[in-house]
């Protein structure tokens, strides 16, 4: 018992007699969700190459608890839209998004996914938020890996705080085109 007291430096646990501690359920759930994000990289263009860097040896997103990259929407809860979404791709990305299981989050990585970027063109969707609700927008063309990691951490913060997401709750498919 003496040893345990030393290892728990936090004041809250100082008088801990039993191996239990109390917390709110939603906080425990948020904590576990935050640290086990399974991202699905929807890489279409240049940002897809940069997301390789984010997951690659130097930047290594695994350090931040988003390690298991899944390419199946049914197994993932964070979609990173990396790259331009064209009009031809739009129905497909909304279908893939619908296949993801709640709770689900979306990062729009880069200028194209956020707003169409400098492609103000006849075949480019002007931002992926026209077809699916987006939680975090990461600027850049392409964003640096640091920015993407920051975006993932913003999502984690959102999850921890259980922040309300009215844009997602009130989302109507096809209403924002």
């Amino acid at each position, binding site marked *: 018992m003496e040893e345990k007291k030393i290892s728990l430096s936090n004041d809250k646990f100082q008088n801990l007699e039993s191996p239990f501690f109390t917390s709110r359920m939603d906080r425990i759930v948020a904590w576990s969700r935050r640290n086990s994000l399974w991202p699905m990289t929807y890489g279409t*263009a*240049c940002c897809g190459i940069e997301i390789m*860097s984010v997951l690659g040896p130097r930047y290594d997103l695994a350090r931040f608890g988003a390690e298991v990259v899944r390419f199946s929407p049914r197994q993932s809860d964070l979609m990173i839209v990396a790259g331009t979404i064209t009009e031809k791709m*739009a129905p497909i*990305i909304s279908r893939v998004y619908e296949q993801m299981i709640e709770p689900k989050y979306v990062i729009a990585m880069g200028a194209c996914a956020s707003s169409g970027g400098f492609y103000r063109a*006849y*075949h480019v969707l002007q931002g992926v938020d026209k077809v699916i609700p987006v939680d975090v927008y990461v600027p850049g063309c*392409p964003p640096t890996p640091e920015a993407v990691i920051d975006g993932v951490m913003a999502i984690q913060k959102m999850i921890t705080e259980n922040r309300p997401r009215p844009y997602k709750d009130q989302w109507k498919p096809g209403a924002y085109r």
Partner: protein
Amino acid sequence: MSSIKQLKQDLNQRFKKEFVFNQICHSHILELETGELTSVLQYLKKYQSFDFLMCVTGVHYPEREKEFEVCYELFSVKKISRLRIKVFVKEEEVIPTAQFIYPTADWFEREIYDMYGLKFKDHPNMKRILTHHQFKGYPLRKDYPADLQQHLSESLEFSMDNEPDGKAPDFKDKDLIPLNIGPSHPATHGTLRIMALMDGEKIYRANVEIGYLHRCFEKMAEVHPYNQVIPYTDRLNYCSSPMNNVGYCKTVEELLDVEIPPKAQAMRIILCELSRIIDHIVCIGAAAFDLGALTGFFQAFTYREKVYTLFEKLCGARLTVSMTRVGGMANEPPKNWFKDILQFCKEMKGGIKDIDTLLTYNKIWMQRNQKVGVIDTEQAISWGYTGPCLRSTGLNLDLRKVEPYYGYESLDFEIPVGTTGDAYDRYLVRLEEMRQSVKIIEQVCKNVPAGDYTIRDKDIVLPEKKEVYGNIEGLMNHFMLVIHGLRPPKGECYSATEAANGELGFYLVSDGGPKPYRLKVRPPCFPIYQSFPHCIQGFLTSDAITLLGSMNIIAGELDR
């Protein structure tokens, strides 16, 4: 020059007619009537050894009586010469298809139909290729607004419409299973969609659908000034961005008829070869990743990060560098940059050795790659293959050797060629090309020419910032160039460079204004990928992944 004279004589003799040859900006142009197109193309291919059809382009001139122009860019390996053939048509006129002479014309003609609405007679599959199937109108016509979007409600159904007779095989009769791969499948690393009819585990027939990343590069180029097009070119082949910058700037410079200073040339060579290395790294690394060798990918990517660092030092961007300008480079390289590159070269040699030991004699890698997607030289030429994929079949064609630019002729390097033309040979060719690129970079870095990094023509290049803020003349020149724009003379030009995937050509038409009148890219992937359904027939699904990885299809330049 004499060969063109000879060609003219031969043609006149053969067809008993006086043909019109023009010369604009170093290229020879032959103007034809639509009726004689097929016979002349056949003759040129058979008797004049014009065995490559590099590119088919459409141009729209609304003010002319015959509104449209279709250009065929021919190339002869034997004679190392190029010839452009032009036909002029009205909107409702039908052009005979060149697809039976040059199979590579198939997709190029579909693209012209998609963009301009011109129809090709006897083409088996005259359908939209880049834009979606609900698209109305023809976007590259001058009257189509660049930013008029049209929404798609439902993606295209599974279809097998690429059969020669236009009829899909009846899969219910033959017990075939339809299988759809993509367009968001991880193994396609990009936005490719493959539709296959499976006979058990074997692919009986396949069809591909592209255009999921059609970002309207060519239309965007028509509505932006010359220098603002450079960032768009970055995003064509985003695995090796600087090469596209160089290719585009070289085209504009040829049209302007200026030569860039030796230092800019050296920097461009270094950027090109660095990007060739990182492009091959992605190609080999990702192919290994798809076949399950995750280590290979991480190992290779470490070196890619090192090149990113070099790019960051040079200009601040990692991936999309936009370092070239028309007339030279954007700025002076930082101090010790060349030394850093030499240091990197040393490390890279070790890196290539690592990849070599990891993969080359790896039993799994050999079994998965050998004898997959075999193509012989003749077929490869008819499909319009260039770059490592062509060289793996044994043909030694590299534009750095045969049409040298920027002083490649004075450098000591070799062109690796394969023997069998399978996926394994493509890997070997790429690996050796990386070694040769390192060799080139070392040679250039060791004696970088002194002098300026750009030409100082006030009508082409912006003055330096200290001139702009420091004296009235600099300010005026800056103002004039920004307001008036860079204006190349009227004319047209096709210029090709050897990019990582093959010949990257830019066909540029200028009407004397501040924006390109027409800019067509000849992406190396485009002809290569159209042979995919043909190459994969009879192979396993797992081989489709191998083949796709070895072809190195980059959606950005495929769909533009």
